[in-house]
């Protein structure tokens, strides 16, 4: 009987058996051929991802870490210089400027994203006609290639582009968005927000839909109004999602590179030279690979620290 069921669909006993096999394998107790077979099968399933991770992630990271202690210009052999690169960075005003540009960009993009994306998700979570079409439309910005987005926005920000044409109809003069120190970074931030909202909106939406409607109904009967339900029911139950969105949005914002490269080349006057662009420029324009690697390490430590803080908050904010 068991066997019969096992062929067509997964029976509870089959799940139990598999779980016990896996457990014993994990505990190192497996001796039979089935156990060793399982062990190898599992290993081979993970292998491609493992190879990718080692070759394309861990190895370059380790190499960058090593390189950060060398002077290297891609022509002559690397020379060990100890902490010289870190000292150079510390003394380099451009690095400081880049760091703060990155911080500004990161929070400038992320914070509005958290709120707008939540607003969008709340809107899309309501019953309304054509909801599926609207959801799809909002998701389009993510589906577009990043380089295409950068090019299109570059044209839109052009003194004779769409943005200025629209502003002109409101009586606001033409602005050379990407060439002015005051407006270049905000212009890039606006694109970042525009592109991030749908992605994080969809994540929020999934979080909202995972909240059983009974909680809201119980709150309605308990006498909670719309705002009270939002603050006492929706927000606490959405907290894990909110934390996830916060981590993800900050990390993705700080890694921005293509938009400054295509649209401003870090200018004007370094006001859009975010850290990844600084690293690229130092390494591949000035051929100071060691210094670029050291800057990468600083960025890595910064992101790592930020993630740790947020994961801690996430654990604390987690629902009991």
């Amino acid at each position, binding site marked *: 009987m068991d066997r019969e069921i096992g062929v067509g669909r997964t029976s509870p006993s089959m799940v139990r058996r598999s779980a016990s096999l896996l457990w014993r394998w994990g505990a190192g107790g497996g001796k039979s051929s089935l156990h060793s077979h399982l062990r190898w099968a599992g290993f081979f399933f993970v292998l491609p991802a493992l190879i990718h991770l080692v070759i394309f992630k861990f190895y370059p990271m380790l190499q960058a870490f090593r390189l950060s202690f060398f002077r290297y210009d891609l022509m002559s052999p690397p020379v060990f210089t100890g902490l010289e690169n870190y000292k150079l960075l510390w003394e380099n005003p451009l690095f400081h400027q880049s760091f703060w540009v990155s911080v500004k960009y990161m929070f400038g993009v992320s914070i509005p994203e958290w709120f707008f994306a939540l607003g969008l998700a709340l809107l899309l979570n309501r019953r309304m006609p054509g909801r599926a079409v609207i959801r799809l439309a909002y998701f389009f910005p993510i589906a577009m290639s990043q380089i295409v987005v950068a090019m299109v926005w570059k044209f839109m920000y052009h003194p004779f582009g769409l943005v200025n044409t629209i502003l002109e109809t409101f009586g606001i003069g033409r602005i050379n968005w990407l060439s002015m120190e005051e407006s270049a970074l905000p212009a890039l931030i606006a694109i970042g927000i525009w592109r991030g909202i749908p992605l994080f909106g969809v994540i929020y939406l999934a979080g909202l839909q995972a909240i059983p409607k009974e909680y809201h109904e119980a709150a*309605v009967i308990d006498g909670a109004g719309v705002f009270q339900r939002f603050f006492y029911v929706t927000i606490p139950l959405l907290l894990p999602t909110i934390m996830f969105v916060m981590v993800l949005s900050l990390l993705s914002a700080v890694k921005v590179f293509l938009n400054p490269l295509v649209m401003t080349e870090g200018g004007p006057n370094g006001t859009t030279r975010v850290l990844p662009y600084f690293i690229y420029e130092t390494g591949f324009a000035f051929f100071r690979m060691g210094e670029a690697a050291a800057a990468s390490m600083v960025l890595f430590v910064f992101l790592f620290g930020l993630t740790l803080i947020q994961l801690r908050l996430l654990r604390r904010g987690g629902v009991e």
Partner: protein
Amino acid sequence: MGEVLLEDLTKDFGEVVAVKEVNLMIHDGEFVVLLGPSGCGKTTTLRMIAGLEEITSGRILLDERVLNDVHPRDRDIAMVFQNYALYPHMSVYKNMAFGLKMRKVAKDEIDRKVKSAAGILGIETLLGRYPGKLSGGQRQRVALGRAIVRDPRVFLFDEPLSNLDAKLRVQTRVELLKLHQHLAATSIYVTHDQVEAMTMGDRIVVMHEGVIQQVGPPMEVYQNPANQFVAGFIGSPSMNFLPATVRFEAGRTFLEGAGFRIPLPAERASGLQGREGGEVVFGIRPEDMRLGSEGEIEGAVEIIEPVGSDIFLDLNVGGASLTARVESSVRMSQGEHVRLHADPARVHAFDPETGETLV
């Protein structure tokens, strides 16, 4: 006070009519059970009373006040949900206090009420815990506590015992009844479990396809079902139904079919007037038959199910299946031919077309 009146209450979801012209008066302090299979409209009716579902037509009145356009918050009604709906991020205390807090009740008053309700339910020690750390039974009590602290005029229960295991369900059923006696508040209880309905309700409202089939005290509904649906839905094992023909012979009325010929007492046969030779559905409950060599029903034993206190016999009567309850001392073997005597006072007959009760 807590007198609820449903007047021509109707709810449709587009083409589907979930509740159809329900009329029902629920008296103050009464425990009324809405009973029926899934999709019969019982939960929709309850949700309309709670204000969670809009009313398509008809009226709901609580103590003569029309509730149709009253916000759920202002209806003075508390509800216990099937899955309890306890806020997972709030302690038991906060869960119970939430409704009062939203109504801006003073803190010390909230404290007094929560502790008093916790005392009634025996959950004082759980107040600091979170719902995730509670057992099913404990959650159930907290959900009740959340309703009690509000001191509402009407309690609504949406299958509150269905998530508990069988033993706990019986235990909680008794406790709920005690609680009802203690609080004496109007309670409307939805369930698909007829045992729950029979044991708990002052009155049972049997619903089917959005329509009330019968309203009455449990034993009345059990003994005098209004139609074949009610007869079949209430009782476990359910009533036996066998196709039969009406015969009048020598001034007596008989229900005749393959393997049985039941004489009906004259005072019970009036519903069959003018149906001579007509088809009806003969109905008899398993416990309304007894073994006897003179019995009017003859069948072969197919399955013997001893349940401890009794034995259920599954018989083949003229090709149809019939369940009879016999004493546990009876010894039977499979394939044996037996005769059963049907209690004439407990014999039912239904119209095969409409299901309406004839006898």
